[in-house]
């Protein structure tokens, strides 16, 4: 069985596209080969900055011959119809077969398609694949019309077996296929002739090209960590950067350089961001101090001076970059420490639009300040501090550092607020009020941060609700689902009791509060479902008074969930449902509500009397427990009703012939319903 080797050699392919491109090449080409009847044993694809490579093992030498049967007209059809059929099927009259069918004699054509050599098919599918390759962005060059990610320079396409290797001849837009590739751009630029994949990989390695991206990444990471370790330091892990750097080199050489002392005073996050974003350097940290002291860069070559020139150049570039960062940092600090302080930045935000229907960033800040102040007492924060924190939380958006590195927003705010002499709480809020940014991101816990984070998110939600820009389907351009989940998690994880409907109304009177609370409830269901709480349990709790206090709602739901997981709880539901069904039917039939007046004096059996006693006892526990929001106690008292209720139904016929007794018993069932539904709306529980 022959093997196939394809290499598409081009000018430098963007690092971020290489992995996907190799996968696409493999998928498209193999699918098309198989469609054409050429199956294979295994395939693997590789990418370097300058090549996409596909190796296929154990491919059929030719597609199998197939015979296709095609049904034609009736044997006695007009001559014209039969001729048409012959033309369409590409057969002659003597190749037709006449068969008797229930519908009469029908003509069938047997079309024999001979197998085709794999090479012919490979040439076709490779041509097609090059022409319709799904690059995220592609371009034309010179006078040609072909599109590729960057100019395609050569095509290697070789089929090999024991007998030797042969080029699959083809041509795309003037580029002819061959059995030639090229080594490293600088270290081994000469042409290399290859006869198959093993030969190819070996010769490339000799020509300073490591074909496999994972091997390049491994070399980089091993060399980097060893080099850092030898100096008593550690490399800051960064998988994204590692993958990117491995896509920028064919022959990785790791070098470690120094950061000039002048810059060691910059915040470590600034060093790290500047080095990663601009230079694609790894940060190297002193594990004792946590300070970033060195960097690792990855060159694409060896040199006679062991990288000394390259390293010196990189150090110089870094110094220039960091002097820029230092310039921003010092200017920003000057502003933060000035008399006007961060207010100057806030003022500048008067010119920055938040959303064209929701005003400027400065207006947003004003709203946040009012809301944070209102929320402060509920989250245990000082109102003045919360208001101040809200006023400076977004100030860093005007700073030079954040203009240069948007991803440092919040963090810089924290540094600058500290420099401006604000309290730690205010400074922390500048950073933490954006949190949580995702389901696994930590929520803020410091009271001032909590107040500002809630204010930010509630303002955002109510604002977009007021202008009717709600998320629909998969569209959520303003990340409102994330904001809602943020509100939920901040409240629950900090155990904050907040009537969200009041907060919503006070934040923005034009937002439909009920609709927004329903949205919060929806997000809450998703959140709790992930924690294993059934949606009917949540519904049973949402149906209760005070459902806009999400923390209370969750406590109730958790207690109910736990209760229903016990044997008593599960059976209580059965008893409750039975009581409720009988009662509801009777109420419907009689047109009255049996809501009070059960009296133990009309009870006839011990079980009936016992139920009276049990309900009295349960009520005595449940009412104060519910007032204290002690759901666990209330619900275990409720679950304890299971036995007396079961015993009652076992022994007693509710629908007695005696009207007084019957009415009394229905009123007793009503007490069960009242007591149980004071805990949660058990009618909504499934089963």
């Amino acid at each position, binding site marked *: 069985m022959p093997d196939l080797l394809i290499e598409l050699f081009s000018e430098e392919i963007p690092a971020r596209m290489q992995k996907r491109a190799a996968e696409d090449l493999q998928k498209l080409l193999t699918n098309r080969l198989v469609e054409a009847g050429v199956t294979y044993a295994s395939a693997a694809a590789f990418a370097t900055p300058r090549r996409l490579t596909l190796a296929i093992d154990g491919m059929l030498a030719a597609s199998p011959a197939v015979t296709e049967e095609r049904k034609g007209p009736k044997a006695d059809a007009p001559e014209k119809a039969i001729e048409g059929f012959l033309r369409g099927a590409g057969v002659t009259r003597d190749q037709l077969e006449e068969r008797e069918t229930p519908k009469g004699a029908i003509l069938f054509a047997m079309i024999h398609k001979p197998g085709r050599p794999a090479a012919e098919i490979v040439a076709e599918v490779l041509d097609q694949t090059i022409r319709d390759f799904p690059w995220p962005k592609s371009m034309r060059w010179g006078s040609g019309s072909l599109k590729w990610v960057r100019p395609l320079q050569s095509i290697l396409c070789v089929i090999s077996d024991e007998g030797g290797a042969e080029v699959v001849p083809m041509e795309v837009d003037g580029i002819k296929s061959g059995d030639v590739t090229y080594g490293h751009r600088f270290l081994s630029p000469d042409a290399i002739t290859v006869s198959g994949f093993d030969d190819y990989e070996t010769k490339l390695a000799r020509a300073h090209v490591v074909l496999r991206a994972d091997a390049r990444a491994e070399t980089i990471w091993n060399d980097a960590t060893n080099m850092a370790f030898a100096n008593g330091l550690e490399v800051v892990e960064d998988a994204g950067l590692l993958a990117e750097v491995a896509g920028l080199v064919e022959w990785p050489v790791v070098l470690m350089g120094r950061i000039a002392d002048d810059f060691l005073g910059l915040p470590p996050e600034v060093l790290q961001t500047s080095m990663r974003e601009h230079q694609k350097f790894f940060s190297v940290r002193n594990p004792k101090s946590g300070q970033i002291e060195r960097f690792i860069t990855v060159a694409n070559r060896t040199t006679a001076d062991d990288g000394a020139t390259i390293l010196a150049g990189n150090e110089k570039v870094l110094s220039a970059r960091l002097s820029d960062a230092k*310039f921003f940092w010092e200017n920003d600090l000057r502003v933060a420490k000035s008399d006007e302080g961060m207010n100057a930045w806030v003022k500048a935000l008067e010119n920055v639009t938040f959303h064209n229907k929701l005003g400027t960033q400065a207006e947003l800040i004003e709203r946040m300040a009012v809301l944070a102040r209102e929320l402060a007492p509920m989250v245990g924060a000082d109102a003045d501090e919360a208001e101040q924190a809200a006023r400076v939380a977004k100030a860093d958006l005007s700073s030079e550092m954040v203009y240069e590195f948007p991803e440092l927003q919040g963090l810089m705010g924290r540094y600058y607020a500290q420099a401006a002499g604000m309290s730690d709480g205010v400074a922390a809020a500048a950073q933490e009020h954006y949190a949580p940014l995702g389901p696994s991101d930590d929520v803020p816990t410091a009271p001032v941060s909590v107040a500002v984070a809630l204010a930010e998110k509630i303002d955002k939600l109510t604002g977009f609700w007021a202008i009717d820009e709600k998320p629909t389907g998969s569209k959520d351009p303003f990340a409102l689902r994330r904001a809602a989940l943020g509100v939920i998690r901040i409240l629950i994880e900090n155990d904050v009791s907040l009537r969200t409907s009041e907060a919503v109304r006070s934040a923005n009177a034009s937002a439909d509060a009920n609709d927004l609370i329903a949205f919060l409830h929806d997000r809450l269901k998703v959140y709790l479902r992930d924690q294993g709480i059934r949606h009917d349990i949540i519904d049973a709790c949402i149906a209760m008074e005070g459902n806009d206090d999400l923390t209370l709602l969750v406590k109730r739901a958790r207690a109910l969930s736990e209760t229903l997981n016990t044997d008593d709880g599960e059976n209580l539901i059965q008893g409750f449902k039975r009581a409720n069904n009988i009662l509801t039917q009777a109420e419907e039939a009689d047109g009255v509500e049996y809501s009070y007046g059960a009296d133990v004096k009309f009870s006839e059996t011990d079980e009936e009397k016992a139920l009276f006693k049990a309900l009295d006892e349960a009520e005595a526990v449940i009412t104060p427990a519910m007032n204290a929001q002690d759901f666990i106690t209330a619900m275990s008292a409720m679950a304890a009703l299971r036995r007396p209720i079961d015993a009652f139904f076992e022994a007693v016929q509710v629908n007695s012939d005696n009207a007084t007794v019957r009415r009394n018993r229905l009123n007793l069932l009503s007490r069960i319903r009242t007591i149980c539904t004071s805990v949660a709306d058990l009618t909504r529980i499934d089963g």
Partner: protein
Amino acid sequence: MAQTVSSTPSKPKSFQSIILALQNYWASKGCAILQPYDMEVGAGTFHPATTLRSLGTKPWAAAYVQPSRRPTDGRYGENPNRLQHYYQYQVLIKPSPPDLQELYLGSLEAIGINMDLHDIRFVEDDWESPTLGAWGLGWEVWCDGMEVSQFTYFQQVGGHDCHPVSGELTYGLERLAMYVLGVDHVMDMPFNDPGSPIELTYADVFKQTEEEYARWNFDTANTEVLLRQFEEAEAHCKHILEQPAADPKTGKRIVMAHPAYDQCIKASHMFNLLDARGVISVTERQAYIGRVRTLAKMCADAFVQTRAGGWTEDAA
């Protein structure tokens, strides 16, 4: 694919000798060596020899120095490598030749970068100029981690697809020269060769102007005047392009793409100055850029109606 191994060229000693080396190199590769455009521009791309000449079907090869102004980058001459006025070296070849990368690497050797000791990399960088309605794909070229050039295959300019595609190279001359000369602060860089009868550094030539323009750009430029000039340039550009192709005086067909484009350049520069003065909000910013783009597109439309832009009697 073979790489030309040139004998080690004599190492340049000054800023100007690097410029001269580039001029000689690209002249030897057949480029017309043009002179800078005589207007304030933000980058070499704005020179009509690039913007307009990348349009249409006629082959083109040009190289030139272009003084460029970026008012927001002013640092009073104090930052080691940020300037509000600096030089770009620009090469435009249409259609892009298949060995453009090798030609480019040759130019680095020509200015004294030893290919055996440095780490040259082509790092993805897609170029887009929203003000010119232009985009292309290519790289920023790194030498030992420093961006020394932009390398772009133009795909669209002024809203027109480029057929054929031009290859554009842009060198940031100060940064590149500082690197080659081993200078840490731009102001310390020798402008003419050390040992000249009157030695001049970059500071001798530009320190004064950097200070003056930084102050003017950031704090004193009269925003009302700038705004008025922006609007005048915009109106003027449109007015020029509204004229009929046939010149009533000579009777010749004269589409005035270049004079109109001058006004587009002017509007763009006024916008940059207004931006540096911090009087343009984020939302307004998009609107201004859109207005300049409209002009650029109109100029591109006009250029392809000229002979230089590939218009012929027959096609019309």
